[in-house]
């Protein structure tokens, strides 16, 4: 009786082994951005973030601050207001400031949780010439 009731389990195990791991246990990570991290770019009207995993939209928080201006490297961090929109795939986000960014150094910080429920976050900087 035990043997016959276990055969579906064996089939399950076999399929599991065949499908193999590739376990998508990954926390959400920033995989790319436009402008890229540490890039020097000419004109920026929006900032795009691409993530490795689908994000839970309500957990997403982003911040854009200007940390430097030409001739004033130690500019006190100044928050830039922007409108944000999640991409249709749930893995990307676009921050659109009201005006194109003036020359300076900018820092983007984000926090969000993916389907694995872990809250993640990171920051990167770029320069507008």
């Amino acid at each position, binding site marked *: *009786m*035990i043997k016959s*009731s*276990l055969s579906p*389990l*064996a089939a*399950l*195990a076999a*399929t*599991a*082994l065949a*499908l*193999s*791991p*590739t*376990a*998508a*246990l*990954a926390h959400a990570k920033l995989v790319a951005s436009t402008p890229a991290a540490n890039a020097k770019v000419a004109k920026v009207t929006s900032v795009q973030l691409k993530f490795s995993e689908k994000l*839970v*939209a*309500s*957990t997403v*928080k982003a911040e854009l601050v200007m940390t430097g201006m030409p001739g004033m490297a130690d500019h006190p961090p100044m928050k830039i207001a922007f409108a944000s929109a999640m991409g249709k795939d749930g893995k990307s986000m676009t921050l659109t400031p009201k005006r194109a960014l003036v020359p300076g150094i900018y820092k983007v910080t984000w*926090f969000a*949780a993916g*389907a*694995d*429920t*872990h*809250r993640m976050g990171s920051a990167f900087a770029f320069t507008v010439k």
Partner: protein
Amino acid sequence: MTDILMIGIRFLLFTDLMLVMGLAMFLLYALRSTEREDVRIVSGLVVLQPWLCGVGLLVSLGGMLALTASMQGVAVGEIDPNMLVSMAVETDTGKAWIVRMLALVVATAAAMQLGRHPRPAALILSLASASALASLVWSGHAAASEGPAGTIHRIADALHLIAAGIWIGAIAAFLILLRPASDDGRQARLDLAARSLEQFARVGTACVLVIAATGLINFEMIVGIAQTGQMPGSSYGYLLIAKLIAFSAMLLLAACNRWRLAPAFAGATSEKTAGVIRRSLVLEASAAAAVLALVATLGMLEP
């Protein structure tokens, strides 16, 4: 801090739901219908059930609040209803939580009927608590696997939890039946314990086989059998090895009960033999608690 809170919540939920389900199923597979209606025998097995269900509801609610707060990066007091709604709509973990809460409401109602309609109530309680237990699959690593592999991972994980719950609930049931209490139901309880301990061999063997097979599947999905050699390099690896050691201790004690203590107890049902087997069961329950504590921690760690 958050992690310790979440680990505690996971431990309580695993233990609580496994006890509810395991004790309810014990009424079905171990007791004859006359025994199920004998208050002196079943009162110990059923009296805690509504409370255990209530604890399950409260801890599950607390768990969702703590998880939402950590995902949103706010304090528990700052959670607003919209955040909970978005958890329920946007995440599988949230949907599983709703299923768990509904299942626990049904379980609570069934638990309160155990005295009046023992068999149907135990049946509904078993099914509802098994659903609640299976929903915990979405609060661990199995939640993150995608596609068909993810489905298999979650089925395996659910079976793993249910088989473990049947075993752990049975340990609790035997301890309740063997408790030292001198009333007129004592002898009937000891006789039932002696008989069901001997009968448990089949159920127990099936549980162990299911646990081992599904455990292997989970391991393949989370770590990968090919990566076994790297296990002793991470805290996940150490804790998993510790879990396997505690599990082996449970197996050894169970084997000792099955082949030595249970036959001796059935042959001569006395205070002395009951005491011996009770001590062995307390050790087995301690090992089970260690396994659950380790599982609660492992689900929070990176493999």
